[in-house]
């Protein structure tokens, strides 16, 4: 309990914890002290000197409020004459070279300097004449940052917020103060082009118009923008932002510290990757196949065709001849409706999401071990962990917001980072222990760590005996995973394994992060469970800043599975084989439900090839490009009688459909997304769709209608009400309660505030289960295929959205096969050479590159680019792909 301090600000008494700054103390009693260089996310800097306040009775004693802590009995004046004079002079000095070009500056209306100059009336500036003599050419410089932002040096007031946010929050430190005194400028070495994440954090924190985004240049004034809260539709971090709308058009994304969970932080995709909404390539009308080609048609015609086909095939071959796969990008309401359509209107459990591969396994594993199928803690707790084990994750590429948390933990909490991956990820440079292991051997590594923990007596005996079962069996299993054995399997040295185990076990708050989205499939269930074992035996579950934090790739990876886009679970993880669960849904939906678990996505494709599945309904899925084994997928789609694709772009899969339905983007619809930390947040409609485009919600309702199943939803709100009654985890979640910050599930009633952290008061399954997990080798290299293919994810891309986004495309236009320098030399390959990569399933040609992050014996390829056809190499049954690389 911190000591409390009492002081007086402008004669108002305020009591705050020791260590609070004067600025924050003033805010508490509603006194706003102006600032320019202050950003709530950053360590106070004191460079602008605007926030100076006077200590009463001491003339000439002005101190900055932003970093001075309060002291007992302090008497502060925030707007005495001296303070006002000081601020005026500060502003005049800043205006020495800051051109007063407000009428053409995009920051106008949202400019802290403009507001202050107006308030303090510093139009008269005797210092300006001196300033006119200074100001060499550099002050008039304009530098482009990627294609999305521009830096105008003349306007810079050297507050340093851009430099600080790049260092403290992003951990990149690409820009710095160059030079000294009056000649100081912000930039890179010799004004080299920026080579950073282009996240735009610097742009968003700049209080003046020195850094602005070109996307809005001269298009809209800040006061003209209608600002509508929504959630990003890219990754699972669930960042909130404001959509800036003018004339029913999205003009820019505005970040806001006070909404959502991301404190105004966004990445390049969230902040700038929205232009695909206006891409020429977007589907504008339904398409139907006539005479071998796709032609435009009306909704009427499209729906008639679908009705005819679905009814016919259901009648002739039964409901199980139809299947659907829904995207992890759909809102919760749409996902719920999709599975309800297949189960209640069609009568089959053949419904799945591609999120099953890699993410669903992790959730399943944790559900068995701990009780809930999701991340155990919340994102903002990571910054307070003191040991972070990042396992098989490239957070900088897949989950930027989580990477920010790790950076903050490292910078502010002096946390220790253990980075374990099959290649050198970006964060590894900052790690205290870097473990580059043989792909697919994570289970062995963690078992080895558990072995060391037990061997050295570092386990939490109290926790184990009171909260977990299965310890004896676990002990027997891990006994065999000695450091020597694990070294042979993983390729990591014994010392490294032992050090990692010790570091993790000795942390007061140790947390494990496992992401998906690397295009990897493996033994996900076992990976989650072995991680849970490690966390449980060290007592790192149910406490703040600990846990096993599994991170789904997409904006609604968690929600899609919660809502039952799975063949074996009804919404809310209630099994279709469970009589009681089925009965509940049968009563609610007034229809008999199939008791047979359906087919998973890859099984659906296999049976489609064999002709057993005749109709496939794909909602936002693009199997030809993203599923393993492209050749088989093509055969599977070829074997269908009818392929119905609901999409936003004419993807490669859509090009082979019988009917294509144009869907709306996230900015054009209402609904909710559930982020990786189980946070349910509202997505709000900000713009109208093009005339013939409909939301997935509306489209699925039409399908209900043509199949003769009556529903009476007028909006997603009612779907959420139905979800409340059928899914206990979401029981207390309604749109009224989902204000600025959303609600974490489980939320069992409307009085329940939601649960940021799980397992604080025990486990829903009684005691946690320590499930012994054995390492199983995922195939072996043969002479013919000696290298491992690792598909990697890029920060700049995610699915078809980013590929149709000009800015993102320019930043990362093509993919390369990355090789280690030694391997390249051995294979006589130079950077830029085209290489042939062969696997047992197929071969591709791709340009190569030599990168430092690629270890020996591995080749890294990004999986985003359709023309690369990486999935020609991959196999639906083999999690690990072995390849051969040679000169083309």
């Amino acid at each position, binding site marked *: 309990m911190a000591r409390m301090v009492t002081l007086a600000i402008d004669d108002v008494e305020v009591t705050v914890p020791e260590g609070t700054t004067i600025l924050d103390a003033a805010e508490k009693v509603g006194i706003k002290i102006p600032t320019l260089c202050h950003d709530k996310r950053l360590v106070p800097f004191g460079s602008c000197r605007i926030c100076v306040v006077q200590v009463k009775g001491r003339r000439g004693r002005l101190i900055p409020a932003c970093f001075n802590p309060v002291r007992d009995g302090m008497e502060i004046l925030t707007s005495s004459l001296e303070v006002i004079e000081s601020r005026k002079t500060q502003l005049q000095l800043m205006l020495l070279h800051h051109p007063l070009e407000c009428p053409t500056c995009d920051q106008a209306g949202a400019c802290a300097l403009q507001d202050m100059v107006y308030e303090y009336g510093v139009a008269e500036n005797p210092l300006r004449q001196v300033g006119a*003599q200074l100001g060499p050419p550099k002050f008039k410089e304009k530098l482009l940052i990627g294609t999305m932002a521009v830096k105008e040096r003349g306007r810079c007031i050297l507050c340093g917020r851009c430099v600080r946010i790049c260092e403290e929050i992003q951990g990149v*430190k690409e820009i*710095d103060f160059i030079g000294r005194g009056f000649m100081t400028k912000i930039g*890179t070495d010799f004004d080299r082009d920026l080579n950073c994440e282009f996240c735009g954090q610097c742009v968003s924190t700049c209080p003046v118009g020195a850094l602005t985004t070109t996307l809005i240049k001269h298009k809209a004034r800040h006061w003209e923008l209608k600002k509508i809260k929504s959630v990003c539709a890219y990754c699972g971090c669930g960042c909130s932002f404001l959509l800036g709308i003018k004339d029913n058009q999205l003009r820019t994304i505005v970040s806001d510290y006070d909404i959502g969970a991301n404190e105004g932080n966004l990445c390049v995709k969230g902040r700038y990757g929205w232009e695909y909404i206006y891409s020429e390539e977007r589907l504008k009308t339904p398409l139907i196949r006539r005479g071998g080609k796709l032609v435009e048609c009306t909704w009427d015609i499209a729906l008639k065709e679908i009705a005819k086909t679905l009814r016919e095939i259901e009648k002739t071959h039964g409901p199980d001849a139809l299947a659907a796969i829904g995207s992890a990008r759909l809102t919760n309401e749409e996902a719920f409706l999709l599975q309800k359509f297949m189960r209640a209107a069609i009568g089959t459990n053949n419904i799945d999401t591609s999120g099953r591969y890699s993410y669903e396994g992790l959730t399943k594993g944790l559900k068995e071990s701990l009780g809930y199928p999701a991340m155990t803690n919340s994102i903002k707790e990571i910054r307070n962990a003191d040991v972070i084990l990042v396992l098989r994750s490239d957070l900088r590429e897949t989950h930027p917001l989580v990477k920010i948390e790790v950076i903050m933990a490292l910078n502010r909490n002096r946390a220790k980072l253990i980075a374990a991956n099959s290649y050198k990820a970006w964060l590894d440079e900052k790690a205290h222990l870097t473990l580059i292991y043989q792909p697919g051997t994570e289970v062995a590594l963690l078992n080895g760590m558990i072995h060391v923990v037990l061997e050295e007596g570092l386990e939490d005996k109290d926790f184990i005996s009171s909260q977990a079962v299965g310890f004896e069996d676990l002990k027997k299993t891990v006994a065999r995973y000695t450091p020597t054995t694990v070294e042979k399997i993983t390729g990591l040295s014994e010392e490294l394994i032992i050090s990692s185990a010790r570091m993790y076990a000795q942390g007061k708050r140790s947390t494990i992060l496992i992401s998906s989205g690397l295009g990897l499939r493996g033994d996900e269930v076992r990976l989650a469970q072995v991680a849970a074992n490690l966390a449980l035996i060290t007592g790192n579950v149910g406490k703040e800043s600990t846990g096993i934090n599994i991170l789904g790739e997409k904006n609604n990876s968690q929600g899609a599975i919660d809502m039952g886009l799975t063949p074996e679970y009804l919404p809310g993880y209630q099994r279709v084989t469970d009589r009681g669960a089925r009965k509940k849904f049968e009563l609610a939906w007034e229809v008999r439900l199939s008791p047979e678990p359906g087919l998973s996505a890859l099984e659906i494709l296999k049976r489609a090839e064999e002709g057993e599945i005749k109709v496939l309904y794909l909602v936002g899925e693009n199997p030809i490009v993203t599923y393993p084994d492209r050749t088989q997928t093509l055969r599977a789609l070829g074997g269908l009688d009818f392929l119905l694709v609901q999409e936003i772009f004419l993807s490669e899969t859509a090009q082979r459909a019988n009917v294509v339905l144009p869907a709306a983007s996230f900015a054009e619809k209402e609904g909710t997304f559930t982020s990786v930390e189980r946070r349910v947040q509202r997505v709000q409609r900000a713009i109208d769709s093009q005339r013939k485009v409909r939301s997935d919600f509306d489209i699925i309702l039409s399908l209900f209608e043509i199949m003769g199943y009556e529903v009476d939803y007028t909006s997603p709100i009612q779907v959420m009400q139905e979800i409340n009654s059928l899914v206990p985890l979401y029981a207390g979640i309604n749109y009224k309660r989902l204000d600025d910050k959303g609600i974490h599930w489980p939320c069992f009633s409307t009085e329940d505030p939601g649960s940021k952290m799980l397992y604080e008061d025990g486990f829903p399954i009684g005691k946690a289960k320590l499930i012994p997990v054995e390492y199983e080798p995922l195939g072996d290299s043969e002479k013919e295929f000696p290298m491992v293919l690792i598909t990697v994810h890029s920060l700049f891309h995610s699915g078809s959205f980013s590929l149709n986004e000009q800015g993102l495309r320019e930043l990362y236009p093509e993919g390369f096969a990355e090789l280690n320098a030694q391997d390249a030399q051995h294979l006589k390959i130079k950077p830029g050479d085209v290489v042939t990569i062969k696997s047992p399933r197929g071969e591709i040609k791709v340009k190569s590159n030599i990168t430092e992050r690629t270890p020996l014996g591995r080749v890294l390829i990004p999986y985003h680019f359709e023309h690369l056809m990486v999935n020609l190499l991959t196999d639906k049954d083999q999690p690990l792909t072995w390849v051969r690389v040679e000169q083309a």
Partner: protein
Amino acid sequence: METLIINIIENEFPKVKEICESYKGNAGALLLVLQKIQDTYGYIPKASIHYIAKTLMITPSHLLGTMTFYDRFTLTPKRKYTIKICRGTACELNGAPALLEKLGELFAINQEGEIINNSLFSLEQSACLGECDKSPVVIINEHLYAKVTPEMLEEAIGEILSKEKQIDTQKRKVA
């Protein structure tokens, strides 16, 4: 690291590699490393900046930021006479720009503020020297000139030039 950078360092600036070796990954040793390189070569070679940054595991922007903050570190070798014009607030307001203009008349000065047509002098613009009561201040090789006018500056430089000419003539006589 790019082989090109490594080649340049190994062939042209081998001492840079030597100095950096013992501080690999040690970002806190930046000032020490820069001092050693400055003392060895008389300047910090532009070509070595990325190498040093990579070895110490800092960003090149940060390295340049640190380097340009201190006058001790230069990008070009220091010459026999260093003309240091103070650009601190008091000197600035009391005539430093006029002095720079005068230098612009006397010498050819490039975009980076370097004198390119006379190898005797190098030009530095420094932050406040703490002699504000004598503003504007010019220091030429440890000698401080107070309340300098453009004419005084021209005179001082002229004196140095004639002194150097004398030394040169004497050298030739002996030779």
